[in-house]
């Protein structure tokens, strides 16, 4: 018994230490840095300044923010439209195909997303498979410029983030009680009413958490616009990266990071408010 308690204490403390060291401490550093000013010889100079935060409201930043949000929303909607029917069919499958299909959804999680983005580059190249196929079918007669467009960025984002939409939806839809659908049909509901009045409201927690899991990363995945958008479409993630690595303006990069963190916190808070305890537990 005693060793058990000891083990528990040690393991919990290790987790706390881990979170503190690799998550909380860096965040704190970023937070502090955001209130300092840009140095001339060093990366930062230790003078308190709100200059970086003031810069956040400059038209340039707001434009980047608006564009990022736009990309993220389009990506999220595409993911939702693709993932919902997919998760629904997956959850309702009765055959032993289900574990296999689930595995196929999860496998990309184990592959580097950078690697997968390069795969998309190859697919969309001027003489890549997609263009070849379209020419072969005589839909087009010369290769389309697919790569380095906004379209390519959205494809890359959707492809990378789709599993994050499918998993919470699947978890939610699988728990959907078939008897409720039976009851609705029995009471005279047609297919679309069953969906709108019963299925959709009951799977809303899954939809919300899917949106959270896709929308937030979609704004910051800098390597996808880098690779697929040809660094033409600057997103928030790219901006932060540039501030740190190219412009060497650490306080600015930190301020953008903190701004984004606050925004995410806000969205999470709203999510927390509008879902019940039971809904959230259903997702774990």
């Amino acid at each position: 018994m005693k060793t058990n308690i000891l083990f528990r204490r040690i393991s919990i403390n290790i987790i706390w230490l881990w979170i503190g060291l690799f998550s909380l401490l860096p965040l704190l550093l970023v937070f502090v840095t955001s209130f300092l000013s840009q140095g001339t010889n060093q990366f930062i100079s230790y003078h308190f300044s709100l200059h970086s935060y003031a810069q956040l409201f400059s038209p340039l930043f707001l434009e980047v923010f608006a564009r990022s949000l736009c990309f993220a929303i389009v990506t999220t909607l595409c993911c939702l439209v693709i993932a919902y029917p997919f998760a629904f069919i997956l959850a309702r499958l009765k055959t032993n195909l289900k574990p296999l299909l689930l595995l196929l959804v999860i496998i990309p999680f184990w592959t580097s997303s950078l690697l997968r983005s390069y795969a998309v580059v190859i697919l969309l190249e001027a003489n890549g498979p997609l263009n070849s196929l379209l020419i072969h079918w005589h839909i087009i007669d010369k290769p389309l410029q697919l790569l380095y467009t906004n379209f390519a960025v959205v494809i890359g984002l959707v492809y990378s983030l789709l599993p994050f939409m499918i998993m919470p939806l699947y978890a939610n839809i699988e728990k959907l009680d078939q008897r409720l659908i039976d009851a609705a049909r029995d009471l005279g509901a047609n297919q679309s009413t069953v969906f709108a009045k019963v299925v959709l409201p009951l799977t809303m927690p899954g939809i919300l958490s899917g949106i959270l899991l896709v929308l937030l990363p979609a704004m910051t995945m800098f390597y996808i616009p880098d690779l697929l958008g040809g660094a033409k479409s600057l997103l928030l993630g790219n901006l932060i990266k540039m501030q740190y690595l190219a412009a060497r303006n650490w306080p600015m990069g930190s301020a953008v990071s903190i701004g984004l963190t606050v925004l995410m916190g806000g969205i999470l808070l709203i999510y927390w408010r509008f879902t019940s305890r039971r809904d959230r537990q259903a997702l774990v």
Partner: protein
Amino acid sequence: MTNSIIQIRNLCQSYHGQEVLHNIDLDIERGEFITLLGPSGCGKTTLLRLISGLESPDSGEIIINGHDVTQVSPQERFVNTVFQSFALFPHMNVYDNVAFGLRCQHVAKDEINERVIAALEMVKLEKFIHRKPNQLSGGQQQRVAIARAVINKPLVLLLDEPLSALDYRLRKNMQMELKALQRQLGITFVFVTHDQEEALSMSDRVAVIQEGNIEQLGTPREVYEEPNTLAVAKFIGEVNIFDTEIIEINNDDLTVNIEGRTLTLKNHKGFRADQKIYTLLRPEDIKVWDESEVTDTSNMLPAVIEEVIYKGSLVDLSIRLPSDRIIYATEFFNEDDDTLNYVHGEKVWVEWYPGWEVILPHED
């Protein structure tokens, strides 16, 4: 114009190559309370789902109110179901749950409001309009489920083991309320249960279903007192079954050999001397006499009291026959009879009123 609200003809259904319902024929009369009674897995719920349209049959037809609805979807059949687990919509309050059916039919708002309030008053839940299903007790959820179904004024109300999720006392109350509700509304009720007591106490007619067949259809009294088959007799209530040999037939009297004794029974069903038969007796039809109480033991079986279980208004006895076979008898207390003081090991004589027995042929 026939008086049947539902006519079922040659209905067959199977799952994964296994036949669940074999050629079911059933006429359900307008306004009756009919119970589909059978053990779990006998196909009674499947039959209900076929009537409601949630499943479609392999073959056969279902006619509701004169229209063949075999291929009609559930929302276009004028039947509603009260589900076993109630299946209330968890994201809607009581009002919205009850209003669901009317909203699907695009009934005017004022009328919906009026009818929902009336339905909730009928099930005494008007105070709980804004509660969510998970804030209600089992009995209250049950009432919401009933209100949600009957508000659509269905021709037939289907009830799929609606009381099985409730505790004993609540179940007893709901049985009476359901029966009263059916009388009040005049709607045909098709009730599915595996509880024979529930079936007998509530129904106008009982259809005993076993392994996908309707074994017997009749009033509770017919089904209990005149079972068609051994299976029905065994499923409904306790029964003592004696293998019986016919010795002689004399007009209406059967002289038979039961447990090595020669007894005289009534030949109601015209059995022939070469037939093998069973004699069935309900425990309450058996009379148990103390040795000192009887003089003529010619039509009785000797026995020994094995166990006495006192149950308040009655006493259950298990009695050992000379062949070591145990039979069961139920004796009712009577104000002017204080002789029900049986003790273990006491020698007794067992008999029954001639003609109270049920005789069935061997099923080969």
